């Protein structure tokens, strides 16, 4: 086998078992043989193209590139394991989505929107999974922790960045009373992360759109480095 940049990257990506950033790929090489970022990018593109017709593909997620088994094979591959994959309760998913879309957010703020207490277990599970972390404390009495999502969260859900989360539904105003109701949202709600895509929800086709979102490397343009 020829030992070239492409082969080294293939080997490293498979050995790592986790996404590799371009920076991390770079330090696989001694300084005097270290490829430039451009060289890495084009090698990565070749690595991606070489997956054509294979049972796996190269994708880019938040913390870098990884080989990933193709989703079309999941029916077969899932049978490798007896246990069903972990299911998460609605309460957990609601809490997680509030943290994802509204970060940084405190537990109290989550409870306000959900209308119920957030159990300590849910927060613990999310922290243990490293999907969320504490990014600071709100400067109010009690100094409650503020939570935000992590790169592991994005990696897990196969996303490159928060922009790729499905857009939030619109808030409609009370029609006959619009304007005078003072329906404007409190300040915390302003910076919706999905704001960039604040459009009304894409109907129907959304599922497909989501599936397309993780970029398969080699198919498209060289995506900007996530870091």
């Amino acid at each position, binding site marked *: 086998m020829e030992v070239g940049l492409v082969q080294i990257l293939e080997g490293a990506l498979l050995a790592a078992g986790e996404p590799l950033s371009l920076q991390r790929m770079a330090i696989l090489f001694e300084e005097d043989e270290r490829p430039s970022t451009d060289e890495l990018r084009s090698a990565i593109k070749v690595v991606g193209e070489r997956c054509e017709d294979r049972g796996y593909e190269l994708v880019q997620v938040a913390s870098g590139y990884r*080989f990933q088994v193709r989703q079309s094979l*999941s029916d077969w591959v899932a049978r490798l394991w007896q246990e069903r994959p972990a299911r998460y309760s609605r309460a957990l998913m609601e809490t997680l989505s509030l943290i994802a879309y509204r970060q940084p957010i405190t537990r109290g703020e989550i409870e306000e929107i959900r209308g*119920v207490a957030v159990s300590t277990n849910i927060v613990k599970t999310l922290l243990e999974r490293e999907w969320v972390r504490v990014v600071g404390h709100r400067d109010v009495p009690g100094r409650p922790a503020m939570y935000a999502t992590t790169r592991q969260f994005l990696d897990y859900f196969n996303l490159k960045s928060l922009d790729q989360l499905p857009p939030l539904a619109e808030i409609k105003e*009370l029609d006959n*009373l619009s304007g005078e*109701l003072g329906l404007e949202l409190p300040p915390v709600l302003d910076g919706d992360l999905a704001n960039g895509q604040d459009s009304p929800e894409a109907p129907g086709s959304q599922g497909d759109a*989501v599936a397309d979102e993780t970029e398969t490397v080699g198919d498209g343009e060289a995506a900007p480095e996530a870091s």
Partner: protein
Amino acid sequence: MTKSPKQSTQSIEENGSHETAALAAELLNVRPEQAEMPFAMVRGQAVTELPKDLYIPPQALEVFLEAFEGPLDLLLYLIRRQNLDILDIDVAEITEQYMRYVELMDAMQFELAAEYLLMAAMLAEIKSRMLLPRATENEEDEEDPRANLVRRLQEYERFKKAAEDLEALPRLERELWQASAAPPDIRSERPLPEVDMREVLLALGEVLRRAEMYQSHHIQRESLSTRERMSQVLETLKHDGFVPFVTLFRPEEGRLGVVVTFLALMELMKESLIELVQTEGFGPIHIKVKSE
């Protein structure tokens, strides 16, 4: 079921209206594993007093409670069940329904989360404000009593939807798997820590400060070259046993070198680390490590 009070048994069909049966079936669908339950277990009198169209077997009710994420979720359910637009809620009607659920749960002595009661109070308040005639003059300032509720419902609903969307995303260990292969054999060598001399010196400064040894003339005056030479002499002696005195001096080091070596030997003797041995007058002097 966690609770086992006295109970009479009634079947859904006997006692329930169509709506009840439909609702029960719906609820049971939420948790299919409950579906084999043939009878409703009903507890005492409280149940028989409940409005007929709301009769729900308690087990189902418990399932029902678990199926909701809180009062907002329950309200949304009630609204959607009637195909009502969230912007056009009939508060009186919804309040009444909500209250009946709450009473029902209360009658069943389920531990009702405080949030449900809080919402009940809020609904009652909105309802009463809706009934009050509005002062036309103040209409501009006055908020629709429902506005806050509607906003909260919408806000909750969008995150309920967001959670569903998130749940639907393909994710690792469910539809997707990280590909990995066994690494090659790797000889791992852990690099040794790097140390800057300044760190060593700072550490020393710290010790000295702690030991209050800055005043010690003993240390301050001592030339390091003497100390170093002491070590060298000891090292030589360790290997060679008896060493001729003269071999410890190297002419190429010059006068200073000779002095340093001599001072080192004096210091070592003072510390009883070496012995000088001379077997006869003016004979060769040998040095050895003391009692070794």
